[in-house]
């Protein structure tokens, strides 16, 4: 900096601007959650690339003469990896060729939009189960029971879908409400046990997961539920009046994703702007202070588990009314447990959870194409998901690998208030 008086003013201004840019870069390279998340995904893809190469015997063979002709091995690996990840992209977001064809008039819009449709179809139920885990976590509860609550949601929504006859629209609302109430009930039980007896919600919800799955297995073999034309464990088909409206075939995406966005907004409001949200956040981080301030911790736990259960139940309902259209033993798939990972990836924030669910949906949809096209097993996608979660769960590892600054020192102002 110059010391001459007349030039001081502009120099100072420049310095200020520069420091703003510097501050921005500083913050960018500090370990805030967004940066860590993106880098985690990057690291997972990197390790995934190695796994793709190892799992392909032909490419692996080129490495046996790596010392004599390294270009073979490198080109083959590069081709395989780039094709696999290109498929992941094409299957999850869009295929440039199909979009080109749509604009040319030689293809139709459905093919071009199919990847996105698949992504959102897989994502929709995960949003609900993810939110279920996330909101419970904000209140200090670890809801492992998303799976059981989603299964019960599937059951009640499915039964309401084929057992009663109602006009279109109303029938859908009734079926969704049934799923919501079913899940809420399955969440109420561990909440009540926690509040009254102190029973740990992790234990009780895991037990209720088994109960729900076994109940579903029993139910679909009963008269009046099992499809009379089938001998295997499959229920009757849900009436079309109760189905979630979808785009025309072959696109599968349905109203569930719209509902998911609305519910995300609702949960975001509930957590941040409602009185109940205030209570649950206070109870979540400091139960004694919440109690001292006159809140009922037990009642908050019960209410919270009811809400979490209702969300997971709604996820089950969306799954069965939007994608599955009948009950089978595996109708809920793994959406409850995936919800745990989605919530973790979304840092237990409502909108973060929505994006995490879409990312998960995208990986799943892209993985399907990757398997069909280059023969990389769908399990690799599971491995990728697991790797992302591992890196997110161990931010110190990511920070160490990329030499990130600690976010605390980078966050200006807050430490100032401490006034040393």
């Amino acid at each position, binding site marked *: 900096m110059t010391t001459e008086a007349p030039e001081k003013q502009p120099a100072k201004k420049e310095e200020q601007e520069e420091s703003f840019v510097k501050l921005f870069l500083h913050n960018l390279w500090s370990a805030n959650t967004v940066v860590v998340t993106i880098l985690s995904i990057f690291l997972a893809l990197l390790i995934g690339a190695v796994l793709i190469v190892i799992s392909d015997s032909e490419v692996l063979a080129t490495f046996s003469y790596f010392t004599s002709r390294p270009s073979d091995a490198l080109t083959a690996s590069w081709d395989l990896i780039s094709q696999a990840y290109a498929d992941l992209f094409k299957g999850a977001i869009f295929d440039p060729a199909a979009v080109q064809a749509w604009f040319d008039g030689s293809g139709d819009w459905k093919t071009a939009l199919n990847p996105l449709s698949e992504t959102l179809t897989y994502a929709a139920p995960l949003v609900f189960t993810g939110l279920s885990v996330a909101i419970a976590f904000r209140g200090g509860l670890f809801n492992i029971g998303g799976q059981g609550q989603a299964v019960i949601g599937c059951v009640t929504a499915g039964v309401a879908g084929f057992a009663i006859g109602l006009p279109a629209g109303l029938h859908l609302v009734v079926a969704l409400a049934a799923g919501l109430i079913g899940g809420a009930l399955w969440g109420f039980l561990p909440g009540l046990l926690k509040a009254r007896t102190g029973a740990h919600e992790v234990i009780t919800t895991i037990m209720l997961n088994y109960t729900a799955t076994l109940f579903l297995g029993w139910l679909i073999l009963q008269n009046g539920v099992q499809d009379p034309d089938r001998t295997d464990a499959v229920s009757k088909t849900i009436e079309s009046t109760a189905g979630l409206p979808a785009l025309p075939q072959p696109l599968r995406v349905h109203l569930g994703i719209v509902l998911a966005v609305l519910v995300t907004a609702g949960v975001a409001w509930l957590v941040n702007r409602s009185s109940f949200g205030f209570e649950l956040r206070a109870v979540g981080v400091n139960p004694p202070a919440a109690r001292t301030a006159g809140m*009922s911790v037990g009642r908050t736990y019960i209410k919270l588990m009811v809400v979490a259960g209702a969300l997971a139940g709604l996820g089950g309902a969306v799954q069965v009314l939007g994608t599955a259209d009948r009950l089978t033993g595996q109708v809920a798939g793994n959406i409850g447990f995936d919800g745990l990972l989605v919530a973790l990836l979304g840092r237990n924030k409502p909108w973060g959870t929505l994006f995490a669910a879409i990312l998960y949906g995208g990986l799943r949809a892209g993985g399907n194409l990757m398997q069909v096209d280059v023969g990389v097993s769908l399990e690799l996608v599971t491995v990728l998901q697991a790797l992302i979660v591992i890196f997110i769960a161990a931010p110190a590892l990511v920070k160490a690998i990329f030499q990130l600054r600690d976010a605390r020192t980078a966050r200006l102002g807050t430490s100032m*208030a401490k006034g040393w």
Partner: protein
Amino acid sequence: MRGITKRFGDLVANDHIDITVEPGEVHALLGENGAGKSTLMNQLYGLLQPDEGEILVDGEKKVFRSPRDAIAAGIGMVHQHFMLVPVFTVAENIALGAEEVRGGPLGWLDRRRSRRDVLETSKRYGLPVDPDALVENLPVGAQQRVEIVKALTRDVDLLILDEPTAVLTPQETDELLAVMRSLAETGKSIVFITHKLREVKAIADRITVIRRGRTVGTTSPDTSTDELAALMVGRDVSLEVTKTPADPGREVLEVSGLIVEDDRGVRVVDGVDLAVRSGEVLGIAGVQGNGQTELVEAIMGLRESRAGSVVLEGQNLAGRTTKQVLRAGVGYVPEDRSLDGVVKDFTVAENLVLDLYDRAPFGNRFSLNPKAIDESARERVDQFDIRTSSPHSTVGTLSGGNQQKVVVAREMSRPLKLLIASQPTRGVDVGSIEFIHNQIIHERDVGTAVLVVSSELDEVVGLADRIAVMYRGRILAVVSPDMPREEIGLLMAGVVTQEAEDTE
């Protein structure tokens, strides 16, 4: 230590601090919370590394990468928050980190030897500890002795005590001061970090005052408390609570025959009768753990009472929920600020409405009104002089004194009939103590009944218009604050008449 500088980001916690500790001296390091005392000592103990400056031990330059290096150089530290494993015995805790092993590297622990070491050290320095007791069963004062013995078994020459009296009762404090004196006589040096002036004057050979990361002076204990306080805070402060005589009115709170049990089912409040009148401060004096905590919790509906009644202006509060008690016009400053008082992850604004969030104008049963919460937060921050960069900073980033001001501001921001303040200034800096005391007296002067519970006799004497002395769950006597300190002290120890009873 020479020219020690430590920065955290843009914050200079220590700015070229020089300090010399002679052998056999008790050197007090005085400063407000957040002045940089602990930061300085953490560097001496190897927990932090200085950015600039050097540390010399016996004239030799040293670099401490970890506490292990510091211990090797003969420096030990007892932290404000004890670093003990509650489920281990005293001997196990002391051996931890320097375990004696028999039979090679994979051998078993030599428990007998560590027991013997403990007994030996404790005898040599006159620090009674039971090596076989579980740490979790020990009172705080005894736990602190364990920490000191632990440091001494490492053969240290310099012992750092970080705010050792913050958690102690007056008696325990006196015991500790005696121990420090005898340690100094054996040639050990002691650095005593504190912000309590009385103790400094009682024990220190030299006093170094630190303010905002700089040394502002090294003085002798002959300096008057007012001068020391002014050095610490940077302006003149009054340590005396100034107040007019009370003008008590009708009885607001009437407690009769109250019996309360603690979590283990021990009867800790044993038939307490109390009355607090409007416009007066009733102070409850007593050594910590004589049932004051449970008494207040029972009044607040946080703990069930076995028998007796709590009546607030004719309304029976027994069996009411905490929310109902608060709504009936009771303000409550809990004794454990960080556990019960504030939610550290919440913003200042949110903490200011922690018990009002579902009432107009801050919200209703369903939603919050962020605008009203913000506006009121700005007002309170100004009115109560809460030093924060913004009402949206989380409370955890504030100093202890400012956190306490948040609690006080919250509780006094609605019309009260009764204010209960438990340990209102524990862990609070001198400047904030003055402020909080004035606020309490102000609340009294507008006609609120005030109940102050404190284990600091000075505080009770300064604030109260009447003092109830509590001992083993009973109110032994209600006395005037003009009664000599010694007599109140005796009452606190359970001595009602001249004849001495069996006390601890």
